[in-house]
Structures are given as C-alpha cells and as structure tokens.
C-alpha cells in the first residue's frame, strides 16, 4: 500500500455529483480537491463514432461491467439471492461522467409534498390508514429551500422546458401542478415529434394538461453561468445509453469538466477503484483505492465526499463498516433502508400512419401530471396513495430494438415468414404511453452485503431485497386505464387488458433510478445522513446522491440530485470548513 500526499477533500466518484461538488468547492474555497473515478476518461470526441445500436444500446458498452461488480437480488427474506449476471432493470454507468454521460436528460423538479411525504400522507389519511409496512419519511428539507438550487441546476444544464407555475401564476402549456418556480426555464422546449404531438392533442381534448418534458437535451445553443456553451439538439435519437456527439445533452464531461480542467486545486484520478473509506475514532482519515494495475494506495484526506452511484454509496459505507446496517426484522439500524426504484408500466399503441420514429431526442415528449402525487384523486381509488406522470416520448427508435412490435394476434410465432411479414407491416407504426410512477418505501425493501457473491476483488456484492407490493399493482392498473383512455382518444390500436401482477424482474429495463440506502432525515435513529448530507456518525464524511432519497418521487431524480449537491456544498462552504464538526 502506497501512501499519497494528503489532500483536503477526497471525492469518491466522477459523475454528476462528485464533479459538481468539486466544481463548487474549487471555485469558492482554496481546498485541494481530488476526485477518484473507477472508470476511464471520457471526452466529447469519443462519441462521434458511437452511434451504434448494437454495441451501445444492446450490449451496453458504456455501463459498468457486471463481470467486475454487480448486485444480487431476492424478492423476500425467505429467498436466497442470485446475481444479476447481465444488466437488466437498471444501468449503472462507469467512467468520467458516470451515468450522467448516457442518461436521457429528463430534468424534473419534485412536487413540494414529496419532501414531507410522511407528514402529508398522515395528515391526509390518518396514520392508521397507511399500510403497516410503509416506511416513507420526510426528507428534512423543503421544496422552498431547494427552489433556488433547482434553478441553479437548471441553469447549469440549460434545461429546455416551459414553466407552468411562475411565482404562483399558472401558465397554460407548462406543468400547472408543479411547485412555484421563480424563473422560466433557461431554454424553450424541444420540438414535437408526430407521435408526441398526437399525444398532446389527445390529452388536451380529454381535459388534461400536457406539457413538454423538461430536458437537458438543449432546444437551442446555450451558454451557462460558468461560460460553458453547448449546441442545440440535432434530434439524432442517440441519447439514452449513448454519449452525445455534439454536446447538446448536458453531461458532466461537457458541462463540468471544461470548468474543472482549469482549476489548480483540482485533480482527477481515473481507473482508481475506491475500496474502503478509512476511519479512526469516528472520523474519516482518507480512502483506500486500487488502480488499473492492481496497486493499492492510501489517500489521506481531511474530508471525504462519497458521491458514487446510489448502490455504491451504500455498499462502500457497509464495506467500510460505517453506520449500522438495517435489520428489517427489528427495524433497527439505518444503512440500507428504504430501497426504492421507479414504477413503470407501458401501453403499446399502434397507428395506421408511419411515425418516422427514428428521429427523436432523449426526452423529447409530452406528458401530464394531472395524477402526479395524489393530484386528481377523487377518493374512490381504493388504497391508491400516490401515482405519477403519464407520457409519450420520442427517443429515437432503433432498428433492432423496435423490430417486431405488432398488435397482439398478428402472428402466432415470433419467428418465420408470417412473423416477418407482420413485423414489416407494423414497423414504424408504434409508440408507447408510459408511466413514471412514485415508488413508496417499505420496511422489507432494503440493501445489505451479500453473504455469498463477491466482486472482482473478492469484496461482497450489494444484495437487493426488493419486490413490488399491492400499491404498485394498483398504480399500474390505474395508469393502464388512463393510458388506454388516451390511446382510444388518439385513435390508436392497443390491447385492452390490465398489466400482470408480476414480481420484480431484473431482466427488463425499467429505469436507472435507484434510490435510498443512505437516506437523509431529521434523526440519526431513522436516517444515515443529516439534512446537509453529512454522516450522522462521522462529521467529515458527506454522502451525496440519490442514496439520500428517503423514497422515490415519480419523476427522474437527476435534477434533484444536483440541487441536493448544491445544498450540501453550500453547507460545507458556508459552515463546515470553518468548523469541521457536526452541522447539527
């Protein structure tokens, strides 16, 4: 083990959170900051020849290698977990920029009641009416506190969208159900596709309120407050699972790295796999990592920021024996609690006319929030506490993935002449109306270290214990009825049936929005980090990312992750560095 020269701040993970934290700290303090990223460097010019569906969309060439590290999954405490041998239900990234390189670009604010969900549900329904196993919590922070930081994050990326609630004024064409915002979006919405325009018109006729998905895929060229200029989107349809070859989609490499590259108090070490946070007497003393050649290093640091993907944040705390692992039987312990994903569910719709669906952008689309949170509920929805957004996106259909979509009953087989003929008849005639649903937290859904399976170094993998509950089935059924109503209004063909009540499945992609494990909160008895994302037990350790979410909200998490990173960095800069002790 080689000891390196001490730094003031060691940041684990070179994605959105780690690099944004580095940008803030190096701009506003003289702290020396070193970021440790396990993957390789990534640059804009790398992406020119990566518009390849096979290697990137199907073989997932940008993702973390499951051969090196994966997770294990079981549905309940009674089962034994097996490894997720190939990525399926979510896609952890690797390399500089992390999953922020290959994300779609959806950039939502959460509804204000999301941040005080336990209080909200208790007031609305009464504690006795909530499911016994429900473990949702308040965040310890409010929407109003985050609002200026949401705006900072929107400016950083130049989010394209349309405000629906500007200082209390409801604006048609935006999301009128959103929390109050002080500013219009930095750039106007993306253009419509044929399919998304049909969706918007149909839901409007039904009396709902369509709005364009707020997107980090720029609708026009934009210069952010750091002076970084990016081009407008070309609608090439290669966003999610790809890096953007023109930099129109905000990614850490095109938004943060240009600024950080000139900072003297910043260094980035790639192919440096952090294995442990080293600590003594309740304080972190630094980090231990292994480089590409297998050499081990100790990097002493006065402060450690754990800013890797949700899963690795929790796993590294567990491997480093920081905090108390959660025990679902006794409900004692906090580390690993409240694992949530996102509740999806699609209705495939078929049209008489072709859609030219190969054109698109990561978050080109139209959606409604008329049933987000518990908006629009009449009280007749039996046991349904929260729903989410329903949307149609045109992300750019690619020929392998989209081949074979056809209405039910068009072909008996899924190969051979009859199938081929039907697939060719229906090619480019279908789209999907999706659900982005809030996933509530339950006492039985959590993560811990697997007792059997290990990573490439021999360290235990993270184990998911996760299954869907009755509430998620109700959400999907409600959403399916709504989607079918919209499909009918669009004049589309669709299958009139409710979704199966299937168990959690690790094969089919759902979203890369995994939350919880190192949640924030108001008490060390029920959370891992305080409202400033400072570890309750270790004042010089901050744990940043969606691991801090007590539960998922319906929308995608990135914008909230960035706003929280600003929130934590403000607390560090304004208070912590002056007196590096407990902030609460």
């Amino acid at each position, binding site marked *: 083990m080689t000891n390196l020269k001490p730094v003031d701040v060691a940041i684990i993970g070179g994605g959105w959170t780690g690099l944004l934290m580095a940008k803030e700290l190096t701009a506003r303090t003289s702290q020396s900051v070193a970021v440790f990223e396990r993957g390789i460097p990534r640059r804009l010019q790398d992406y*020119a*020849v990566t*518009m*390849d*569906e*096979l*290697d990137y969309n199907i*073989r997932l*060439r940008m993702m973390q*290698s*499951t*051969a090196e590290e994966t997770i294990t*999954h079981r*549905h309940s405490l009674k089962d*034994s977990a*097996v*490894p*997720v*041998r*190939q990525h*399926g239900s979510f896609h952890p990234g690797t390399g500089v920029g992390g999953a922020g390189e290959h994300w779609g670009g959806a950039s939502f604010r959460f509804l204000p009641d999301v941040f005080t969900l336990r209080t909200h549900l208790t007031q609305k329904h009464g504690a006795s009416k909530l499911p016994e196993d429900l473990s949702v919590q308040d965040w310890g922070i409010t929407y109003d506190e985050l609002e200026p930081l949401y705006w900072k994050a929107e400016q950083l990326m130049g989010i394209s969208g349309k405000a629906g609630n500007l200082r209390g004024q409801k604006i048609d064409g935006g999301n009128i159900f959103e929390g109050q915002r002080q500013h219009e979006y930095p750039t106007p919405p993306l*253009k*419509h596709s*044929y399919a998304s325009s049909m969706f918007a018109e149909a839901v409007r006729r039904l009396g709902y309120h369509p709005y364009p998905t707020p997107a980090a895929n720029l609708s026009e060229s934009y210069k952010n407050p750091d002076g970084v200029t990016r081009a*407008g*989107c*070309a*609608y*090439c*349809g*290669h966003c999610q699972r790809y890096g953007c*070859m023109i930099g129109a989609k905000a990614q850490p490499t095109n938004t943060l790295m240009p600024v950080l590259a000139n900072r003297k108090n910043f260094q980035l070490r790639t192919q440096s796999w952090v294995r442990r946070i080293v600590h003594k007497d309740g304080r972190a003393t630094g980090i231990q990592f292994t480089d590409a050649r297998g050499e081990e290093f100790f990097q002493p640091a006065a402060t450690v920021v754990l800013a890797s993907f949700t899963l690795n944040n929790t796993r590294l705390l567990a491997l480093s024996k920081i905090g108390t692992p959660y025990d679902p039987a006794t409900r004692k312990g906090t580390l690993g609690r409240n694992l949530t994903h996102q509740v999806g569910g699609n209705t495939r719709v078929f049209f008489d*006319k*072709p859609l*030219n669906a*190969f*054109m*698109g952008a990561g978050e080109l689309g139209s959606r409604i929030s008329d049933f987000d949170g518990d908006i629009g509920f009449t009280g007749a929805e039996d046991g349904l506490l929260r729903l989410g957004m329903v949307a149609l996106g045109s992300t750019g259909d*690619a*020929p*392998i993935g989209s*081949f074979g979509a056809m209405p039910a009953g068009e072909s008996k087989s*899924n*190969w*051979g*002449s009859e199938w*081929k*003929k039907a697939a*060719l008849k229906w*090619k*480019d005639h279908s789209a999907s109306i999706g659900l982005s649903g809030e996933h509530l937290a339950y006492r039985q859904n959590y993560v811990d270290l697997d007792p*059997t*399976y*290990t990573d490439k170094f021999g360290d235990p993998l993270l184990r998911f214990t996760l299954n869907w509950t009755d509430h998620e089935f109700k959400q999907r059924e409600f959403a399916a009825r709504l989607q079918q109503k919209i499909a009918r209004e669009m004049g589309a063909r669709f299958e009139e049936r409710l979704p199966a009540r*299937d*168990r*959690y*499945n*690790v*094969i089919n992609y759902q979203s890369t929005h995994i939350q919880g494990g190192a949640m924030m909160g108001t008490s060390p008895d029920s959370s891992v980090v305080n409202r400033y994302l400072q570890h309750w037990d270790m004042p010089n350790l901050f744990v940043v990312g969606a691991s801090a979410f007590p539960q998922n909200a319906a929308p995608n998490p990135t914008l909230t992750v960035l706003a929280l990173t600003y929130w934590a960095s403000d607390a560090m800069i304004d208070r912590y560095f002056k007196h590096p002790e407990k902030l609460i």
Partner: protein
Amino acid sequence: MKRREFLTVPAAAVGGTLLYTLAGEPVRLQAQTGTVKVPLRFFTAEEARIVSAACARIFPSDESGPGANEANVVIYIDRQLAGPYGRDKYRYTKGPFVESYPEHGYQGKDNPRDTYRAGIKTLGDFTSLSPADQDAKLRSIEKTHFFQLLRTHTIEGMFSDPMHGGNAGLIGWQLVGYPGPTMSYRDEIDKHFGQPWRPKPRSLEQIAGRRGNPWEDEQG
C-alpha cells in the same frame, strides 16, 4: 493451431449491389454473380452452414423481402461469438450457479460460445432437411436458451451496422426504411407528420468518415 475455416457466401451479399428505392423494396441493381470466401473467426465451416440455414428459417428470404442469407447474418454471429461477448468477458460469471425464478434471467455457466457449440449439435443434419422439417426442428427447441440466443442474434445481424458483419449492403435497413445513424434531423423532426420519410440509408463509417470501433474486435 486451429485451421482457418472459410464460409462461401454469395458475392452480392458482400458487394453492396442492392439499390435502395423509395418504395422500400430493395431491388437488385447488378446481377453480381459468383461467390466469395469469408474467413470465419469462431465457427467451423460446417457449423456456419447449419447456423446459416437456421437463421434463414427465423428470418426467411421470401415474398416480403430479403432475409438472413442476403444480410450475412451468420458472419455477424461468428464475429460476436469470437469477441468479448462470446466468451462472457463482461458478464458476471462467478459461482455458485443456481437455478432461480425466470425474473432473474439466464443464470447458467455456459457462455454464448458454449451454448452455440452444444446447440448446433442438437440440430444434427439440419442442412439436409426440407424447409418444413427445419421449421419443425426449430419449433421443438424454441424454448431453449440456444434458440432464444439464435433468434435474438438473427435480428441483430439483420439490423446492426454493417461494421459488425451483418446487414450486408445495408439490406436490413433498406427493408425497414431506417436511414442509419444520422448527424441531424433538426430540420425534419417536426415535418412529414403522417407521411413516410425514408432517406437513403448510410452506415456509421459513411457518415463519420472513418471506421467504427466494433466491440467484437477488442483484443484481450
């Protein structure tokens, strides 16, 4: 040392002799005749002939258009199996290997190469069967991991960028009217509503002006 094996394929399939038409019907422009020999990276010539025949039943050449044979799907599969994918370089392959729920996906130890080697044997004298008997044979193994891989790979070989060895002459993209990777649709995205817009397909190499970097060529 392994003896180098070759597969003989119709020259037309590798010669880019198919002309695109707006109707989406590929039409043979030149009657390029004869055959060419393509070196195989993984299969023996006999294995390649069996796989090729099976792919041609999964995605047949028929009245609805060309199929796996014209696209050189077998060349695609051969290269995938020879590369990192074929030997599970990026799949989690630590034990113990246990059967689990279908929701946990393929949990087996065999990599795609092993699965093909064993699967091809189960097809026996496949190339000598009539098309109807070939279909019956495939129908009988439809639920196997091997068949599911074969079906998936056939579609991939039809429609992936030609740098991967299939989709010869962009025939798959012509068949479905996919223009290939395109730098910009900025001026097109909100036009052509309800009308088919089918620009002439181009490969990644054609639009980027340099060769791509297919994963199957990765060494080590």
